[in-house]
């Protein structure tokens, strides 16, 4: 009907400019838009400002590649496959980037406020912790609180005037230029259906000014609209779509494939140093496109990750290859 929203992987990365603020779909090591992340690294994007409900391998790859100046979030690591974010840790230690710490619920509420068009949210979480320590307002110390995309304050403390519920902390809405989503299905007009947990995807898409959806498959819009109550993000909140099977790898996707734990473990083990990261990037990112990446991974590895359609994950026992 309307103008097509379809773009290529390369075009998706090109929409994200040097200095853009950016957020992603998914949760830690699940449903991260890796094919776009790889393409950003290939295109040598600089000065990104990541605002994430939580970080994960996508953070580590972008940070290791030197694409990121500012990271606002609460957590980074590879879950079972790497207990912290070694690249981020190194860059923070070297003061090569700014980290602004919030709690997980605070990040979630910041996105919920942004998605609802409210300037802030009110919560009682994390009172009394160093997350609220005024000396640790890193964007403030760096003189970046312009009140435009970056709020004038990290926090404001107040009291509840209605029920005497006590101390409250106001957290600023998350305002993001671009959200890049990785989901199971998107329709030709942009309707998204996430299967399984939707994490913070609906809020991320709505809080962002531009939303790019990379899907395992683009499906007929009409198919999704037969069951509107099973859809996750409405058509008009999605600006661009692209189909990219296994675009989440090495992270997992409910109903499609598991996390590639061995890949993440290898990344974690090899990228403690910048030389290690650069070596890993030469092997797996630069000089590749998505198809040659899949070829390099190979059929045996990918079939081992494939989800059983009755279970929605790859059972640990019963795989032919094991």
């Amino acid at each position, binding site marked *: 009907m309307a103008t097509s929203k379809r773009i290529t992987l390369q075009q998706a990365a090109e929409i994200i400019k040097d200095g853009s603020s950016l957020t992603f779909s998914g*949760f*830690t*090591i*699940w449903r991260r838009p890796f094919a776009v992340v790889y393409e950003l690294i290939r295109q040598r994007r600089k000065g990104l400002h990541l605002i994430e*409900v*939580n*970080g994960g391998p996508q953070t580590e790859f972008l940070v290791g590649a030197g694409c990121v100046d500012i990271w606002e979030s*609460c*957590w*980074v*690591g590879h879950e*079972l496959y790497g*207990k*912290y*974010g070694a690249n981020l*840790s190194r860059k*923070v*230690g070297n003061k090569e980037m700014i980290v602004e710490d919030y*709690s*997980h*619920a*605070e990040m979630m*509420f910041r996105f919920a406020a942004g998605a609802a068009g409210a300037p802030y949210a009110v*919560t*009682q*979480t*994390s*009172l*009394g*912790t*160093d*997350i*609220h*320590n005024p*000396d*640790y307002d890193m964007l403030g110390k760096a003189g970046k609180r312009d009140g435009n995309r970056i709020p004038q304050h990290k926090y404001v*403390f107040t009291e*509840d005037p209605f*029920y*005497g*519920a*006590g*101390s409250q902390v106001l957290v600023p809405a998350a305002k993001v230029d671009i959200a890049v989503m990785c989901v199971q299905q998107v329709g030709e007009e942009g309707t998204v259906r996430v299967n*399984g*947990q*939707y*994490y*913070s995807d609906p*809020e991320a898409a709505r809080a962002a000014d531009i939303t790019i959806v990379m899907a395992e498959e683009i499906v007929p819009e009409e198919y999704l609209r037969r069951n509107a109550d099973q859809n996750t993000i409405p058509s008009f909140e999605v600006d661009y779509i692209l189909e990219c099977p296994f675009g989440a790898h090495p992270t*997992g996707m*409910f109903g499609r494939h*598991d*996390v590639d*734990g061995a890949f993440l473990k290898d990344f974690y083990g090899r990228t403690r140093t910048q030389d290690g990261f650069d070596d890993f990037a030469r092997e797996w990112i630069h000089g590749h496109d998505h198809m040659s990446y899949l070829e390099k991974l190979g059929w045996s590895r990918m079939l081992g990750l494939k*989800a059983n359609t009755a*279970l*929605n*994950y790859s*059972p*640990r026992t019963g795989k032919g290859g094991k």
Partner: protein
Amino acid sequence: MNDYALPEEYGLADLLCCAAAREVQDNEVVFAGTGLPMVAIMLAQETHAPNLKLIFEAGTLDGRPPEIPTSVGDARCEMGASRASGLYDAFSIAQRGCVDLGFLGGAEVDVYGNVNTTVIGDYLNPELRLTGSGGNPDINSFARRTVFIMVHEKRRFVENVSYITSPGWLVKQWPGGDFVHRRELYGSAYRGGPSAVISTAGVFRFDEASGRMYLDTCHPGKTPTEIKEMCQFDLDISRVQGDTAPPTRAELRLIHEVLDPDEIFIPKVKKG
């Protein structure tokens, strides 16, 4: 049920897992992080707490995973769940006061139960940046009780943590940073706080009034004096109740044959 295993039949991870499982009461709503807590909760579910409701932070509510998930975002979390949604739901439920118990971890803990998972050394000049808070402070702010499972090393049990990621019983009041009892700060959200630390040496609890940690039980083979030596702060050992109860053989069978047969979180003890 007095089918306790002998010391050579179980490992430290088994002991921790069983001690953690015993913190759960039936019918409770329990918030679980990734790793050993998941095994502990599922063990409780298989034994004395069949009606506990398990919440994972990423958004699965009252799930019954048949295999141990590798993270709270795992597709496995959703098997048998009452609802699969997202983080806004999970944290709203917590803030609303629906969570009885949360299981958490930490790199450092202090005498007031404040926990650090953010940084080793000075925040502004870190020796080592860790993962960051995750949902640790959020669950700890809102649950009625929280239980921390930690490796016990002297450098981890400190008078004051270098960075309070997750609030204990005495916390900092900003902007000054003076310590106050969490009751004073949390208003209507005050529902309790850290109720136990289960370390690799013993089980610790807190005096709610003073907010200070004391030793409750010693893991078999450890003495109160030894454990006191393993803390940088002056540990109260006057209230020790004896040894931590070892795992039963039935619990060990559940852990290794049903819950974690692939030793993802809990290694099997090598026989002979």
